[in-house]
């Protein structure tokens, strides 16, 4: 064939070498971009450390987070082996903060993961089928979307009653609508691309097209958005505990600790703001990391 010469010279490298060196795929480019972003990497490191410590908490040789002492209440950091001092019931703050990280991170992750699965699924179905189904699903979601998220969480938690499980259910319900919206709009965009039309022209079923062509193109944006919700989830979960609708005492959870220490803010300010600092650092890190991810994954032309 006459035409064969032109493209192979255009490749500029010998075909054998090109074959051995794998081509740069999308995720490769994303990884390379992330590796050059110190802020995102730093945040990821902080979060990994936090998760690692939270998981390893029982084996770190910490004080018992539930052991009270009436004579050592509200001591400042560094007092008699209490690295971060003690709370209003004389419990070790370091131990409580680390054990509190377990619950706080749990209430940050689990609702977002559940909401991503449910909301993402609904959004992809709505976006891909379009028409009447889109109408039904999206209007239903708009009903939930109309409420401010904190108010909705408080209302659902209030109706279900206090408790960890109920606050996770209410947070999941709060996060389904925004995730479904993102999923729907991204899927609608992808559905209109010619490659989906071309896939339809091969006689592929809707499910097959979603699997082979849509999912790969929508999971990125959905995950980026979901990662930014984790911090919101931690904050709202803390808020629920603060209001007495989430985790109940004597369990350690950052929001709950903030609530109980609030009365001591004038007596021992350094101790009282510690849970707040933890919430702030964690949610900041999640936000910055999700921003970095968004930047790295927003690649024009691939």
């Amino acid at each position: 064939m006459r035409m064969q010469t032109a493209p192979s010279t255009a490749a500029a490298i010998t075909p054998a070498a090109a074959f051995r060196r794998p081509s740069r795929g999308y995720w490769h480019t994303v990884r390379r971009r992330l590796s050059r972003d110190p802020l995102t990497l730093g945040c990821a490191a902080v979060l990994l450390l936090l998760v690692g410590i939270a998981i390893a908490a029982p084996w770190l040789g910490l004080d018992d987070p539930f052991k009270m002492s009436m004579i050592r209440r509200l001591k400042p950091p560094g007092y008699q082996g209490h690295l971060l001092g003690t709370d209003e019931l004389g419990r070790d703050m370091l131990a409580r903060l680390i054990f509190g990280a377990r619950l706080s991170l749990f209430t940050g992750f689990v609702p977002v993961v559940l909401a991503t699965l449910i909301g993402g699924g609904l959004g992809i179905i709505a976006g891909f089928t379009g028409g009447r189904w889109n109408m039904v699903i999206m209007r239903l979601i708009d009903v939930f979307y109309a409420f401010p998220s904190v108010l909705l969480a408080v209302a659902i938690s209030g109706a279900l009653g206090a408790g960890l499980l109920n606050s996770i259910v209410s947070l999941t319900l709060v996060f389904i609508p925004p995730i479904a919206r993102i999923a729907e709009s991204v899927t609608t965009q992808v559905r209109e691309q010619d490659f989906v039309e071309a896939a339809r022209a091969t006689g592929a079923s809707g499910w097959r097209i979603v699997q082979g062509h849509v999912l790969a193109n929508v999971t990125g944006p959905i995950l980026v958005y979901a990662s930014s919700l984790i911090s919101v989830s931690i904050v709202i979960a803390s808020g629920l505990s603060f209001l007495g609708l989430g985790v109940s005492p004597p369990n350690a959870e950052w929001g709950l600790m903030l609530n109980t220490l609030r009365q001591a803010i004038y007596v021992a300010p350094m101790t009282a703001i510690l849970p707040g600092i933890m919430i702030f650092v964690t949610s900041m890190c999640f936000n910055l990391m999700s921003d970095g991810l968004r930047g790295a994954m927003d690649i024009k032309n691939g």
Partner: protein
Amino acid sequence: MLLRAKKHDRSKAALAAATRDGDALRLLDRDSGPDPRDRGGPAQPMLIVKDLQKHYDIGRTALRGPRSVVRAVDGVSFEVAKGETLGIVGESGCGKSTTARLLMHLIEPDAGSVIFDGEEVSDVRGISVRDLRRNMQMVFQDSYASLNPRLTLADSIAFGPAVGGMPRAQAQARALTLLRMVGLDPESYAQRYPHELSGGQRQRVNIARALAMGPRVLILDESVSALDKSVEAQVLNLLRELKRDLGLTYIFISHDLNVVQYISDRVMVMYLGQVVESGPVDRIYGATRHPYTAALLSSRPSMDPRRRVAKPPLSGDPPNPINPPSGCRFRTRCPRAQERCASEAPMLAAAPDHDAHLTACHFPLSAAGGATPTGMEGLHGAAATDSGHAYGHTTKRLLRLQA
């Protein structure tokens, strides 16, 4: 790393399989004899399209106004013979692409029928939409949007056959064979991603992707329009080679009259959702009968400075397809329009001197060019053939340069 290495071993094995037994090639090569899928025989047209119609109801445009209907495709009928290339030309918005999508049943037609090789496309009898799509594939204009950015080229090409039930290894082997057929070295391109390719290379991959289904008809919807002239010429020649080697039938949609003249056997001119003229390529370009075709042809830039047109032969946009003009739809822009054109819609009728040359016009131009209307003097005769040849020359020169 390990995973990627494994993937490469796999494609290497697939490549070896493809080159060893040429299995996929034999599946596609039709040189050995008559196509076993040819049911109606050579005389049976590949496609017969009757009164194809698609109207879009866009609701009320005014608060209490009547419901508006866009007549995107309004009673289009044509035939495509086996092994020919039918060119479809017209301004943007005239229904070319809608016609293509209706043929593929990517959009459901409101009315009309499509008969593929003697079998009507229908749910109850004849050929199913699924089988039709296997026999007819489409290459789109936007080479980037028509490839999934997250799939390697080999995976993109192999998707169709895999959907049709072909085992993975065989589909991959076919993808590699097809890459070679469209002039891309499978060793260096199979594992690449669309954004690493140029527009011309991507369009080659799109052609390979369409061919992977083993179609008999290829619809090329503005497939070369977005490419550079030199790359366009290469792809056009590739299309010609593929057509010859695989015995394909083309429906070639373009707004570029020179390209259509270069590649087509027959040409169909559309205006506002209707066919205004159709016939063999030399008749359309050499003995134009419809004033619209004449205007289109004279709007081509000429290679000869003495023949350049100072005034545009057509001014303004085509009328709104929501409320097309009564009678002949071209009459509002036609220099030959008379009262009859407003009251009576012209039907497609054969030219007196040529049975296959159909024109929908009450007052067609005569082949001799005697009754040329003012503003179009001599344009549809000499100028048309001249610039047509000029394109041929350019292409040949480009090819010589590349060789």
